[in-house]
């Protein structure tokens, strides 16, 4: 991944910008949401593979910063919501698309199913993914001359 950052730096103009946009595991909350109410029913479990991915990304970007390839200009977290019509759809999606990275524990499944079944007719299920966005400015070094 450090090599990828080196390549990105190479193809950017002087003072070019790199936007790093990615999800960060942090026990994302699960909610049952209706027009009238938001009810938190549990949290996603982070799995070792997902945590290792985040760690590797953080290490790579730290190395690029240490090498003075890029300068952090701005950084922020924001929520990115995934919504499903029912708990079973959420469970299926997580098992299929995020297998190995995150999982649902039985208590969160049970609480979500219960809150959704007892909730308003318009209730949906939502996972609030934590996103990180960073603006990196390419630094000019002697190697670029």
């Amino acid at each position, binding site marked *: 991944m450090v090599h990828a950052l080196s390549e*990105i730096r190479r193809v950017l103009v002087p003072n070019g910008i790199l936007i790093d946009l990615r999800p960060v595991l942090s026990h994302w909350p699960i909610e049952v949401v209706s027009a009238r109410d938001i009810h938190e029913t549990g949290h996603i479990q982070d799995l070792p593979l997902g945590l290792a991915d985040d760690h590797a990304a953080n290490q790579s970007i730290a190395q690029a910063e240490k090498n003075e390839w890029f300068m952090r200009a701005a950084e922020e977290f924001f929520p990115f919501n995934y919504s499903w019509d029912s708990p079973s759809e959420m469970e299926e999606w997580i098992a299929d698309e995020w297998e190995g990275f995150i999982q649902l524990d039985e208590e969160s499944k049970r609480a979500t199913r219960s809150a959704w079944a007892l909730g308003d007719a318009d209730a949906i299920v939502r996972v609030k993914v934590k996103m990180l966005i960073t*603006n990196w400015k390419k630094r000019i070094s002697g190697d670029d001359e």
Partner: protein
Amino acid sequence: MTIQKDAERNETKYLHRFADFAGKRVLEIGCGEGRLTWQYAEETQSTLGIDLDADALRVATIDRPSDLETKVNFSRAMSEQLPFSKETFDLAILAWSF
């Protein structure tokens, strides 16, 4: 299955808060099916999305609006070995791809 992603459009809001796309030559790494690409490409001078997933790139190309055909392209390439000359792009986006 019905899934909705980012109904609040936070990703678009933050992307535009963090980058000025107007007239820029943009490289998007990990573009997939182009979900993010369509949120900014119209403003750019040119946009090139790369990914390793040929099927996703096919979908992105099929979904490309006709008025963006001249400025948005997709290509299969690895981020570790970018097939471009130095200083080709003004802006790069690492999109969900670390």
